[in-house]
């Protein structure tokens, strides 16, 4: 299709509303937009005048899929503002529930939303007849992740138990042992999907870009760390505004972001590219089996990186549980001294680094907030990928081009409801 328009009004099987608009003339792009018509919800404004203690439960509602990550970023931002340092036990349990969310979100995306593309169907439902056994394995993994969140957080979405400086309910040692057993038993399900992904035809497309992810010396960073770049260097979390510049492009639909280059990517592939050396053995096996090597510049491989991270989270959670059991769980004093201040929290959620910044007055009332959401950081990179991808596929039919572009957007696993910095758009 050398001439003509593609207008995908609401890309399906993504979280939230996004449109792809392409106008081709003689095989060249006359216009290409990645549009976001999702309703903005103004959380940064809404949390003002609320108590510091309510911030994690309010901001959890920014996203149904990564509500655990929002809760944790919020807690870390509030705790930084209050000058509170949570205990090792609290941090380990937060890492454990964050892994649950990563597995829940990655399996939802890879198996339920993206796999239908690779297997040639329009949703997960037909897989119940065509790929019954793999689908049952996918469901088992997804359910495990949900019940793992239920155990620690009280429910799958919008966790109840995580509060400033601790937990309102601790799991019992027996519950943790039972979870450890299930994590171990889940590994064959993961391995079976790695075998399937090995055989799938993943579009061969590369565009060099910058990848940002949190990094730590002692582990593959999810919970916290410093901001690392594949272009080199690290930035401490409190200086995030110096590293990540948000800006408006007049024709665009969403606030865009850049760091060292014109655009960057966050998420599973960005973490993989920055922190490959710290992956667990099972995760490194999965990466090797599926042909994923750092630095990988193919955004379609984000699906594969998510599967690699799922392996890591399963294995690393066993390590965390062993550590918790060795320490012995105990009720802790959660009381905190209320004072004014500003603090920044950042954590790796399934789609990338999430930043929450708060300013509190002396009574612990929120007077200011700023959140940077992973999908917002990716919009700019998505649009530049689409522009680079189109010329390589213009010889294909309109249907094929459309599907490939949709698959690219889905590979990023965009979470559009999350993106609080969004502009209203008109259709061309």
């Amino acid at each position: 299709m050398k001439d003509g328009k593609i207008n995908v009004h609401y890309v399906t099987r993504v979280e939230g509303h996004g449109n792809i608009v392409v106008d081709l003339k003689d095989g060249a792009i006359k216009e290409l937009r990645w549009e976001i018509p999702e309703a903005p919800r103004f959380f940064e404004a809404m949390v003002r005048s609320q108590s510091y203690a309510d911030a994690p439960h309010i901001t959890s509602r920014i996203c149904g899929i990564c509500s655990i990550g929002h809760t944790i970023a919020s807690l870390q931002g509030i705790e930084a503002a209050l000058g509170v340092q949570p205990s090792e036990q609290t941090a380990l349990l937060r890492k454990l529930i964050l892994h649950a969310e990563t597995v829940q979100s990655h399996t939802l995306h890879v198996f339920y939303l993206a796999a239908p593309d690779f297997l040639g169907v329009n949703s997960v439902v037909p897989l119940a007849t065509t790929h019954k056994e793999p689908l049952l394995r996918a469901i088992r993994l997804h359910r495990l992740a949900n019940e793992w969140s239920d155990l620690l957080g009280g429910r799958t979405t919008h966790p109840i138990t995580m509060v400033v400086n601790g937990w309102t309910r601790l799991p019992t040692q027996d519950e943790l042992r039972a979870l450890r057993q299930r994590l171990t038993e889940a590994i064959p399900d993961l391995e079976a999907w790695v075998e399937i992904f090995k055989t799938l035809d993943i579009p061969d497309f590369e565009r060099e870009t910058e990848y940002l992810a949190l990094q730590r010396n002692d582990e593959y960073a999810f919970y916290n760390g410093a901001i690392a770049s594949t272009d080199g260097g690290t930035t401490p979390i409190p200086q995030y505004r110096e590293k990540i510049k948000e800006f408006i492009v007049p024709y665009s639909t969403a606030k865009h972001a850049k760091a060292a280059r014109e655009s960057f990517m966050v998420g599973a592939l960005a973490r993989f590219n920055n922190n490959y050396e710290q992956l667990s053995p099972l995760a490194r096996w999965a990466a090797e089996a599926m042909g994923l090597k750092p630095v990988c510049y193919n955004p379609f491989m984000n699906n594969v990186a998510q599967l690699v991270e799922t392996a890591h989270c399963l294995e690393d959670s066993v390590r965390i549980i062993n550590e918790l059991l060795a320490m012995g769980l105990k009720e802790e004093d959660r009381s905190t001294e209320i004072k004014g201040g500003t603090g920044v929290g950042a954590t790796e959620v399934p789609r990338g680094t999430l930043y929450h910044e708060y300013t509190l007055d002396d009574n612990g009332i929120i007077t200011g907030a700023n959140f940077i959401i992973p999908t917002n950081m990716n919009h700019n990179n998505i649009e530049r990928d689409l522009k680079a991808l189109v010329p390589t596929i213009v010889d294909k039919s309109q249907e094929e081009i459309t599907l490939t572009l949709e698959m690219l957007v889905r590979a990023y696993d965009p979470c559009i409801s999350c993106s609080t910095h969004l502009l209203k758009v008109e259709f061309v």
Partner: protein
Amino acid sequence: MESGELMKPRIAIFDFGCCEGCQLQIVNLEEELLDLVGLVDVVSWREATTGHSDEYDIAIVEGSITREAEMERLKGIRQNAKVLVALGACAHIGGVNCLKNFFEIDEVLEYVYGEDAKHFDSIPTRPLSAVVPVDYAVPGCPIDRKEFVEVVKALLLGKKPPIPNYPVCVECRTKGNVCVFDKGMTCLGPVTRAGCGAICPTYGNSCEGCRGLVDDPNLDSHKEVLQEHGLTVEQMLNSFRMFDGYMEVAK
């Protein structure tokens, strides 16, 4: 349709301003979802499938109304649907998005978007029922998966969905929890509609009122708990903003 074959009810799922966490609870039904979709014909569900139709019997709508244009879209859905179900707190009672309503809209826009605020439109947040008639609601933030299944089953049988009209306290006592007030915390359980199994108090926190009020809090609240702690219904409702900001009581 083959003659003699019963026509399956056609269901469409839509969302407005929300986190899509309630739709996620539907996905989280796992195998049970596959059973459920066997009983109905899902004709539109952007989050989970490709394909769309405006021919449907039951519309399940998540999210609250936060922009002018959304009112027209919702009215269109109402016209197409025989039954409209509000899914979750945002659709049912306005939910957390109503916190915006305690500020001037222009100030909110400018706070988040600075000089680019002019590109946006936003109106005070409202639940679906402020725009169109709503037949049933599945309350909660997020919804309870089991309750959702019960509501769908009732609709398929042409019955009224079983949503309790007694407060969370009733379920909390059944669970044998220590009263949240006795722990020195406050709790909206005495006036909030049950059905969640008092999940927040059970996990050591307090009820935040996400399922909305019982029908008449002055009559249907758990007066016993309020009396024990020297509270009136009015005092309780004053702090009712996190999820119920749209209601008069929170203003």
